[in-house]
């Protein structure tokens, strides 16, 4: 849960998000979405610092950080994306695709490399197109499609692209975040698991 102190600020940000989405300013809305999530991570890290746990300098959406994202925030953001896009974009669309694949495709994570990417990346259109054939590298962020012609679940995407430079390099990127790297399945799964856990809230 977000502390009440940040609630007024959050409300403002969320209404701005709504505004951008209604104007179909998808890229700006995506950037704001990533910022909201990172703010939440920063807030959690501050809370952990008070508990004496050593914090990271800059917030990143690591698997652990994603697993602790506030359900309320995720649902609020998802709600606005869904409304503006008629269910085309948003976390729910992504979770739906992911959960469906989880049930139908027996994917071996050890094979998650540039040649055999997880089918999710292909489905949401995050893979680089080389001679009309997808390969296991993700697009550079600038190359994503910021309109409703994009595949379902294509956005929001920046939350996934923002990674530490070192990690980007490790994964074959060129300090371009997730762009040019093969997808980090753990982070993707963490977000999806987080979303599905939030659905179980109170149940």
């Amino acid at each position, binding site marked *: *849960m977000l502390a009440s102190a940040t609630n007024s600020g959050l409300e403002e940000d969320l209404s701005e998000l709504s505004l951008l989405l209604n104007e179909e300013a998808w890229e700006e809305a995506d950037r704001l979405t990533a910022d909201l999530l990172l703010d939440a991570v920063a807030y959690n890290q501050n809370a952990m610092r008070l*508990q004496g746990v050593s914090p990271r300098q800059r917030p990143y959406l690591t*698997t*652990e950080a*994603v*697993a*602790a994202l*506030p*359900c*309320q925030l995720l649902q609020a953001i998802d709600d606005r994306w869904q409304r503006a896009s008629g269910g085309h974009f948003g976390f729910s669309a992504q979770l739906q695709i992911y959960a469906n694949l*989880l049930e139908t495709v*027996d*994917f*071996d*994570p*050890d094979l*998650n490399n540039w040649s055999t990417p997880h089918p999710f990346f292909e489905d949401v259109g995050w893979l680089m197109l080389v001679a009309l054939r997808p390969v296991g590298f993700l697009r550079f962020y600038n190359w994503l499609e910021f309109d409703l012609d994009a595949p379902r679940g294509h956005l929001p995407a920046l939350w996934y692209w923002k990674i530490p430079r070192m990690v980007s390099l490790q994964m074959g990127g060129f300090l371009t975040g997730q762009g040019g790297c093969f997808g980090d*399945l*753990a*982070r993707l*799964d*963490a977000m*999806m*698991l*987080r979303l599905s*856990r*939030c659905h*179980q*809230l*109170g*149940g």
Partner: protein
Amino acid sequence: MAQDIQFSIRFVDPQYKSDDVVTEVHYLIEDLRDLNGMSQTRFEPISEIRDVAEIRVGVTFAAPSDLLGPILRRLRDRLYYNPIATAFCFKMADIMLCIETHQADDLLGFIAAAQSGLLFAPERDYLAEAETYSRTQGELSPTELDNLNLLRQRLGLTAEQAEVLNARAASPYPTKADKHRHFEDMTAAEFSRLRAMDEGPPFASKDIWPVLQELAENLGLPFLEAEAIYQTHQQRYHDDTKLKTEQTTAKTAEDGRLSAEAKAEAERQKQAQQTQERLNQYRDLCRQTMTHAIYPSEFDQGRLDQARRLWGISAEQALQLETEVRDELYGGVASATGVDYNRLRNLLHQQAWHEADMETEVLILNALNLDMQPVTAATMERLSTVDLTTIDGLWNRYSKGRFGFKAQQQVYRGQQQIQADDRQRWLAFEEALGWREAPSLFSRGYKPYHDLTFSLEAPPGHLPTWRWCCPSLSDRYKINLEIMAAVIHHLNTCMPLETVTVPALDTAFPTQIA
């Protein structure tokens, strides 16, 4: 001292012809004249107009009263042989007796009376008058005595005779005081009889007043005086009775109160026993219906409902009993945090291991109530013993001891024998649980969550997984070692295994594995 009696005998049968009647009268006179002492008697014929002519239909004569018997006998004999309707009248002084009959036997009563000397005896008349006077006031007043004296002279009795008769009329209690005393004695006797009766079984009627009234009448005691005496005695009797009743009532009330209390207590006990019996019956029925299914079939539900109504068990009580029986048969679902473990129980009962494992995560994260965030080393100890015991109990029960937290603790205890550093021990623990394969050149041995074994063929302690402390699952099911240590520590604290000592955790434990 005989007085004359005036006789009048008349034939009144309308069937008889005038001639025959005249003949009958003639023979009647002849018959009577034949009697002793009647030869000088003057017989006057009675005439009446019949069929124009005046004829004799009867006769009238006077005879001394001592001849009454013979005359009556003769008249009876005549009727006996010739039953002809006849009117007989006998008159003496102011008294006249008449009888009209054709049957001889009707005259027998007269004969008997005549022989006793009472019929038309002047003594009788006098005595009757004397008794009447005597009874009105209880004794003879001077005026009454004077009246009687006049009557005596008219009836032709001597003074001596009158004296005897007066005494007889007043006897056996000649004076009013005597009667008074006697009545009082009798009343007292009656009431003492009533008292005696009260001791014994009650009588239907205790009304003695009518009898006493009769006595007063017979004695010739005036009604008002008798009533006064009676009421005095009655009052005394009532007072006695009331006193006695009060004493008895007090005693009975005391006894009654004690016995009522004992009775109520017995009744309560009986009722409680009956209620208990019914509850037990219902419990048995629940057990019966739930033997094959956690939730009774629709048919069995109907049976239970019917039984509940029949035995007067409230819906809440019934629900409680059903829950108790279900917990007894299928394992308890107690929770310290209000989490509903029924679904987990159902899934485990169906051996739906994968779904049960997912449900376990939902339950634990909900019990923790931390926004569904995965369990960390810091938050693990917030899980209550009750909830952990319930989860362990259900898993243990439906896997016949193969799965559950206790099974995992057992595996952990087994790993304590391995001589290695903590990290190696934890890795060995994961391997033993089947959560991880032995690392090879190409792989660290971790596998994605969905590659775990969700069946009873899995190694002991394989389930439930600790997915509730994992941030992600599908790439690989891998638990932070620090959290793993915290989980085991907490489990050992909440549900200590018998005869096992948990080694103190190494504080310098590596918190992260690259």
